[in-house]
């Protein structure tokens, strides 16, 4: 683990009870987040990408592995000071701006909720000032503080959600599909805001998404997850230029191209897990080229390296 690693996920496993049996949502996922980068987790619905984000935030208990934030363990049983550290320095942005704001609370309370929880202000004036600054930072007017969430549009609501996270002055933001529920016309509004905040404050993003065209635009590195396991991890351009795992290829083939001539000629690939012959040699997580990791058995890796 190098010095600039901010968050380290080691062999993470999350299971949910399903009657008597247990359903494994995430299985043996490991990755490091470097300070200041945008790291994206992509995968289809139900692949476990949201679960990873929520496991880091301690919403879901983990069954295996551990999570380290700046070298300190923040998973499993931790004391109050570690919990405090986690809550202040890691924050989350949610998918659905219609569901993620408390409809019966004013914006003033929604944004200052975290401040109240940790008494992060000396007096009422300082709290107001912090709320005002957070609203300005996301391009909203401070007068909005006295209004209710239903008075705002989807893009405005998502920015209120970002202000709520920013007011804690986090270092790491987990963005759980922050633009999937937004109209195409306001997606760029939120993406540009996130990019600006990253630049101004040196934030690190864990960006969870299924929309690869957006992911390519904002990510430094991308990890592809399939049924709770990472199958490929590489730098954004490297992954788009040389996708190795068949699932990644299938995923990339689904990205629409703006040129209808090219789009018509494109062949869609469907991923079928049975193409892997794992009877000899279990798949393992191997580095094919510098910084490019793939899940595969020895035979496959040899083919990909060539």
């Amino acid at each position, binding site marked *: 683990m190098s010095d600039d690693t901010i968050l380290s996920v080691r062999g993470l496993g999350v299971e949910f009870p399903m009657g008597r049996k247990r359903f494994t949502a995430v299985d043996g996922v490991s990755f490091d987040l470097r300070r200041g980068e945008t790291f994206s987790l992509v995968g289809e619905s139900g692949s476990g990408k949201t679960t990873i984000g*929520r496991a880091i*935030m301690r*919403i879901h208990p983990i069954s295996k592995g551990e999570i380290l934030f700046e070298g300190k363990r923040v998973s499993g049983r931790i004391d109050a000071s570690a*919990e*405090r550290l986690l*809550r202040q320095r890691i*924050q*989350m942005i*949610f*998918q*659905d701006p219609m*569901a*993620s*704001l*408390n*409809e*019966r*609370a004013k914006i003033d*309370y929604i944004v200052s*909720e*975290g401040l*109240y*929880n*940790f008494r992060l202000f000396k007096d009422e004036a300082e709290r107001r000032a912090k709320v005002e600054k957070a609203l300005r930072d996301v*391009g*909203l*007017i401070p007068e*909005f503080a006295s*209004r*209710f969430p*239903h*008075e*705002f*549009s989807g893009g*405005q609501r998502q920015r209120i*959600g970002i202000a*709520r996270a920013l007011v*804690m002055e986090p270092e790491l933001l987990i963005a759980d599909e922050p633009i999937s529920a937004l109209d195409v016309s306001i997606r760029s509004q939120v993406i540009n805001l996130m990019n600006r905040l990253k630049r101004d404050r040196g934030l690190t993003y864990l960006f969870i998404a299924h929309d690869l065209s957006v992911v390519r635009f904002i990510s430094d590195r991308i990890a592809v997850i399939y049924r709770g396991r990472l199958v490929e991890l590489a730098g954004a351009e490297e992954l788009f230029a040389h996708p190795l795992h068949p699932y990644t290829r299938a995923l990339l083939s689904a990205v629409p191209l703006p040129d209808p001539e090219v789009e018509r000629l494109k062949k869609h690939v469907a991923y079928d897990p049975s193409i892997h012959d794992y009877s000899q040699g279990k798949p393992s997580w191997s580095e094919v080229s510098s910084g490019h990791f793939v899940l595969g058995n020895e035979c496959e890796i040899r083919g990909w390296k060539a």
Partner: protein
Amino acid sequence: MKRPMPDLAPELFRPALFDEAAAELTGYAHYSYWRSTMRTFLKSPVSIFLLALIVVLVTASFIYPLVSPTDPNRVDLDTATWNMEPGSGHAFGTDGLGRDLWARAWYGTRTSMLLGLIIAILDVGIGMIAGALWGYVKRLDRVMTEIYNVLNNIPQTVFLILLTYIMRPGFWTIVVALCTTGWIGIARFVRNKVLMIRDAEYNIASRCLGTPLHRMILKNVLPYLVSILIMEAALTIPYSIGSEVFLGFIGLGLPLDTVSLGNLVNLGKNNFMLYPYQLTWPTLLLAAITISFYIVGNRFADASDPRNHV
């Protein structure tokens, strides 16, 4: 096909300015939950009439004993004043001991209203807190469900009769008797609601911010329940008044020197064949109170649903 552009001088045009701050203001819509609820509620003349009836009955029953010199318990030894027909100086007539039924009706309404109000406040108060915890804290679910099963499976009548035998009959005995079983029904109702909103995304957001449980319940859960709780309270009042009347009717209600609607109905039924007005007046009053509370409560529940705010 291209349409030819008409000849227009460029100086006729002026570039539109884009003000980003002004654009932010467009999302604004005036909507107040409570104002819309009241507007929807007051749309129906029936609700207005019944609400007015409740207000009149409640104020009259609390003001009458303060201003009237008539003692509802004064027994007249002159048999000529016994069982007098309504009219004749006594608006509702007199009962078998010459007591003025008009005065007794108001005193009785006051006792019953007070009883219903106290029971409603206790039931809803306890039920709300217990239900919020029951729904929110997963470990409590098993225990509370068992308590619910036990309390809910004791026949209400048997339980009430048993309690009034154990404790001395009186106002607070009935309050305790009705509350011990009443809160759990409301608690279960609240629990089901809480289960629906517990896993909403804004609650996960609050957990990510480290919000403690008590503030989650106070800020994230209870505001969504207020309208339901008002309705529950409005429905508990007529239920409690009815229960008191039922207990009075089988002779286990309040002591006979307390004037209540239950005692009035109980005494009235004994003379019903000879002097029917002694039963009909208190019963009509009882019906007016319970029916208006039920309908107003239900109308309010409908009005408090934002889907009905057109």
